[in-house]
């Protein structure tokens, strides 16, 4: 399957990947509307880590033997054997945080108040390059 890979030597830490991840999952067409709609604004599934000059963007790796799927006590985390995409079902999630305990990348983001996993990369669902990759200005994210 195609995966997103980060090239940390190319990343300039601009965080456009986070911003376009938010837009893509906001249900809005423009950044202005997506960010104005604070109440429904999604959390980015793609996160930039930064330490001085070093930075890179990371999102769910869609592991073949996904430990989060093994750990999920609610049946909310599943992997499609045909596409390889690991998906999270917010309706089934009970906020037990077993996925957080297991993900070796820290790629699952939670909201303890809401009691749910709030963002996890879904590869933007399609064949095309995900939003974070498509909008990376320095080719620090590739999809292959």
């Amino acid at each position, binding site marked *: 399957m195609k*995966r997103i*890979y*980060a090239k940390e030597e190319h990343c300039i830490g601009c965080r456009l990947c986070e911003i376009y991840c938010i837009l893509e999952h906001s249900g809005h067409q423009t950044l202005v509307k997506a960010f104005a709609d604070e109440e429904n604004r999604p959390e980015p599934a793609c996160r930039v*880590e*930064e*330490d001085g000059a*070093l930075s*890179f963007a*990371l999102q769910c*790796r869609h592991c073949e*033997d996904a*430990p989060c*799927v*093994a*750990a999920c*006590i*609610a*049946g909310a985390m599943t992997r499609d*054997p045909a596409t390889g995409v690991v998906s999270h079902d917010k*309706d*089934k999630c*009970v*906020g*037990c*945080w*077993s*996925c*957080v*305990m*297991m*993900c*070796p*990348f*820290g790629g*699952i*983001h*939670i909201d*303890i108040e809401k009691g749910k996993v709030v963002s996890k990369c879904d590869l933007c669902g399609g064949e095309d390059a995900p939003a974070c990759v498509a909008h990376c200005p320095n080719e620090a994210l590739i999809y292959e």
Partner: protein
Amino acid sequence: MSDKRYDYVIVGNSTAAVAAVESLRTQDMEGTLAVISREPQAAYCAPLITYVLAGKIPEEQLAYRPADFYERMKVETLLGAEVTELRPEAHEVVLADGTTIGYGKLLLATGGTPIVPPLPGVDLAGVYTFTRYEDMCRVREYLEHRQVNEAVVVGGGMIGVKTAEALVKLGIKTTIVELLDRVLAQALDEKGSVAARRALADGGVRVVTSTGATGLGGSEVGVVGVQLDSGETLPAQLVIMAIGVRPNTTLAQAAGCAVKRGVIVNDHMQTSLPDVYAAGDVAEGYDVLLGESRPVAIWPSAYLQGQVAGANMAGSDTAYEGSVAMNSIQICGLPTISVGLTNAAPGDEVLESTSANGRDYRRIVIRDGKIVGAIFVGDIDRAGIITGLIRDAIDVSDFKHKLIGRDLGMLSLPKDYRLHQVMGPGIEV
């Protein structure tokens, strides 16, 4: 000659069984496959029964897999059928009604049985264990018919704590009685345990530690109280026994299968009987950190063992990597995660950090340069990075101090390990 025969038979229908079905079917879509379970319903998320009891989630949400799971996986289900005998020579199992089911390969995924201490009064109405759907139904029905103002939960482990939390949500004054000097003693260190106890107190759960239950008092309507070894009697119209679960090895043992505390398996999840596998809470998984086999009755291990068993039953050659004991449990709103050996042995190095408000606590136990245990309380973000370091047995001597702070991330790791992780197998940089 058996009445029916399948290429694959799975006894049990929980985590390990479902994982086995899924992995088996990625290898072999044609072989006939049957799942036999004592419980009549489709696979469900057993830990969520406390959520349903508390009214936090609807009952339908218990389903572990979509409704068409068995059909899609070409599984014939014999649900509500109890296997009473395993005949390894004949390669068949016998059901309670006498039907014999032949198998090519068999998986024992019979799980665990709650331990009920032989206390006087333990058979009274209103005394339950709380691990299965039917337990929840019984408790719910009991609560409909009897006024319950007070409950006692015997045992302060995971099940005890989550059940007590649910009972309090229902407006029942609930006390946990724990024999050890702290709750969740298996998972948490002392500080973590203190935080858990505080969360329980804030959530309205009373906790009594260093105290054993010696008996249950009853009347004609059922249990009325729990006698403690302190001499005190706690009034209770409902008692939950949650002192632990042991592997349900009856079937395997009677068939002459090698059993210690659980069914003994090799790294392919094969038992001592030909063509018989075991996975999940019934089996003794290899504990990576302790270097010995023992039952590690946790969900992720059950799933991973089931996955390995299913693949091998279908003819592949897959080894189980071994178990690391771990638990994630939210206690009255306070998330806690514990992984591995969290109580340090002499000579171990311990790194700890506590947030200014005292709510968030992290602890890492290091032995010979490698992390062997970790605890996260409150802020649990990216805890899995530490789990990964434990699993991969990475020497953290050079960067250990980066792992205890709130900014824990992939950037806390050395470049080569980080790239190996992020880029994935086959794309080494």
